[in-house]
């Protein structure tokens, strides 16, 4: 009896010979699962309310619509028929089944930094998720972007294949943080400004970028508009719970916190914080913004009536409930997209096990006109020692219409 069971087991192994030996070990699969958290695979490949990794989420890129594919091991509609080599190539080179060229909405430009072992662990994990039959038509881009061959040109300009190279001068913790940020964590995908082709701008690593109607903040060490005044603990707490004494995660970062960073290990969060804080020295806050006194007076009065009950007269907010505005890098950022959006539309913070409240800010678009929004935003960008260029009425008007066009 035992022998025949063994025979069946062996025959099963041999019929799945395409899979490298040992792929079913718990440790390997679990490591792959954790890498899927680091890589936030579910953030794009799981539709809200949908089956895990069955795809179907529409991404609105500057070039048109892409729908995320099904990456479950379903033979017909997923990646069940992909070889391990094809899986590795998709992550590393942006080339999928039969060499199909992927669009860089799939962050292969950063996944290419991942180690061989990590990619294979991820492969092992994805073989174990439940196959879901869900046909997705990914490429819904307009001409000429729908021609996948165009990625040949894009890659030549914007893509460099290659593994992460540790910096021997730095600590293991620093290098682990750098690996996550540059590799699986694909932080640059949102936080690094893009050129006209959507490729990362050189020399602007993690300096903040606008996408999907939100500004992904500047993660440089600048004390005014970067994370220069945040401590490592502030960063860890933010990534772990979505809330710290400075701010609360909302918008696309709420999804990243929910699906990815809140599930990372404490040691990985500490490593990310170490890398982000130490990758460059902090630079002193400087700005020469000048705002007219009338604007400050009007904005201050509007602030008192509409904002101060939660954010307080001193702009300090309340940790875990109401973001601090005084000294806030997001408030002072050169690109005010998020600030204008949140004032007009309101927002809700993420709920995590560590900070479950998920407080909301109401919309003010029905209550404040464009002049008033411009004045109050100019005020909070320049009150309490803040300094940033003021906004004019036209900027608010334009933000209103773009929000109405793609909410």
């Amino acid at each position, binding site marked *: 009896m035992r022998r025949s069971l063994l025979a069946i087991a062996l025959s099963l192994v041999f019929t799945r010979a395409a899979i490298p030996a040992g792929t079913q070990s718990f440790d390997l699969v679990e490591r792959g699962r954790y890498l899927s958290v680091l890589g936030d695979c579910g953030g794009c490949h799981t539709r809200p309310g949908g089956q895990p990794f069955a795809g179907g989420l529409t991404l609105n890129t500057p070039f048109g619509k892409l729908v995320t594919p099904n990456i479950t091991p379903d033979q017909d509609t997923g990646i069940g028929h992909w070889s391990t080599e094809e899986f590795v190539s998709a992550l590393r080179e942006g080339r999928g089944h039969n060499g199909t060229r992927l669009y860089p909405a799939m962050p292969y430009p950063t996944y290419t930094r991942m180690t061989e072992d990590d990619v294979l662990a991820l492969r092992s994990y994805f073989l174990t998720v439940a196959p879901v039959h869900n046909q997705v038509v990914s490429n819904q881009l307009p001409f000429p972007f729908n021609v996948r061959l165009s990625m040949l040109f894009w890659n030549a300009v914007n893509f460099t294949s290659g593994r992460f190279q540790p910096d021997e001068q730095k600590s293991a913790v620093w290098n682990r943080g750098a690996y996550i940020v540059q590799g699986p964590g694909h932080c640059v995908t949102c936080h690094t400004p893009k050129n006209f082709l959507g490729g990362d701008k050189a020399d602007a690593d993690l300096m903040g970028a606008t996408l999907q109607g939100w500004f992904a903040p500047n993660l440089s060490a600048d004390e005014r508009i970067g994370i220069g005044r945040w401590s490592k603990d502030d960063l860890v707490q933010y990534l772990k719970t979505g809330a710290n004494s400075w701010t609360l995660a909302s918008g696309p970062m709420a999804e990243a916190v929910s699906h990815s960073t809140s599930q990372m290990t404490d040691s990985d969060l500490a490593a990310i914080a170490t890398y982000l804080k130490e990758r460059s020295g902090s630079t002193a806050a400087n700005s020469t913004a000048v705002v007219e006194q009338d604007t400050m007076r009007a904005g201050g009065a509007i602030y008192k009536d509409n904002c101060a009950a939660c954010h307080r007269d001193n702009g300090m907010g309340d940790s875990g409930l109401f973001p601090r505005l005084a000294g806030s890098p997001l408030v002072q950022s050169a690109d005010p997209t998020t600030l204008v959006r949140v004032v007009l539309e309101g927002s809700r913070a993420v709920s995590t096990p560590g900070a*479950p409240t998920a407080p909301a800010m109401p919309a003010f678009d029905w209550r404040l006109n464009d002049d008033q929004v411009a004045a109050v935003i100019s005020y909070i960008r320049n009150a309490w020692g803040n300094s940033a260029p003021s906004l004019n009425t036209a900027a608010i008007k334009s933000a209103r219409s773009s929000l109405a066009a793609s909410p």
Partner: protein
Amino acid sequence: MRPEQDTLTFRNSMSQTALPIRHFASFLPGNGVGGAGVHWNGQTWRFLPTDFQLRTHLEQRYGKDMLPTDMTIQDWPLNYDELEPYYDRFEKLCGTSGKAGNLRGQQQPGGNPFEGWRSSEYPTPPLKQTYGPTLFAEAARKIGHSPFPQPASNLSQSYINPLGLKIGQCTYCGFCERFGCGNYSKSSPQVCVLPALMRLPNFTAQTESEVTRINLDSSGKRATGVTYIDTSGEEWEQPAQVVLVCAFALFNVRMLLLSGIGKAYDAQSGQGVVGRNYAYQTTSGVGVILKDKILNPFIATGAHGMMIDDYNGDNFDHGGLGFVGGGYMGAGQTNARPIQTRPVPSGTPKWGTRWKKATAETYQRAFSLSTHGSSYSYRDCYLDLDPTYKDRLGRPLLRMTFDFHDNELKMSAFLTDRLAEIAKAMDPVEITPSPRKGPYNINIYQTTHNTGGTVMGADPATSVVNRYCQSWDVHNVFVPGGASVFPQNHGYNPTDTVGALAYWTADAIKQRYLKNPGPLI
């Protein structure tokens, strides 16, 4: 508040014909997610230890003849010591702001000297007092009372509750009562419970739905679930192992009556229990206009204020007074919303230039003191199904039969006199005492403290649920702490006791009932 869903009929006495209420006024029950917890004021009081043995205590101290023959007050089936840990838990959930007066039997300066023992200090310190309550406290102290800050679930500082939920610091906007809190500083379910529940994978809130009845199996001794309708009127059945009736006191009673759970109360015979011992709250006030003071009364919260408890429950000798019961009294400042708040001296015309002038001169100098008195239960104060009027689904409306009795009116006169004495010590220009007068007027706001109807007790002949808020008749139906389980109402706001009983019941269900489903007694 949706009268088309929740209206009831009302009459003052059994000889009258009850008519439907078109607008809620005297009380404002909640309807929707969070219920009345959305628009409560946050006044978070414990009952006195003697309140829990009310009949026994009063009969022992004053003799059986002291109580009117038609007064149907009864002892609670649990005592203060048993409930204390659950009071403590609920206050920690809310982050209640206050000052203990009795920590494990040790008197604490600055707190309520009459309160039952507390196992711990309030989770957050008292709210800062505004000027009116400060002046009241000075006057009360001057004539020998011990004023203390009212316990408030509008928080003095931000707080993280045991569920990990953050509650903010109150901004004194003065829009607690009748409104949801806009900045997370009042302890409503939306702030201090629901965000944690919503994270649970096995939790679903079926909103925009109304339960029409609790379904029973053929034996009538076990509930199989509930039937509910959605906004399109479509009917659904939700099977259940345990049904918790948490629909607000009045609606709890109607739900049991419509579902045939427990024997309906018959006031003529005094038999039956469901609907019996409906009680309310006996409130009164003293209007005060001061000289050249600027009170800024719009700086307000639902529950700050300075109170005295000298005339509550049996904290004072009722010998020779001709009544039992009492209440706390003092100065709060729940609001001075400008359209609604137009105090003027007596003799001012009701309109025109002189009224406007008097309004402008008085707004800053006037405020109200209030008493919050008990409402004991009587044989002829009850809830049943109306014989005539039906709701949009064809179900009989709930009928309320209620009036103040002499005992409560005498108590209110006595309390209001005591309060007026303190008001006089404030050197006022004018005071206007308004003791509660009968008949009960359902068209004037008083409080939303409707109690009784599914009362808890030790004897199935005089109670609907046992000491674990479990139905005597259908063991998997619980009424976990709605004020409908109060055998009578005491001289305090009910919410702290409602919350404590909810925890008490939940513990009994979790630790005992689920392991061995059946009657717990």
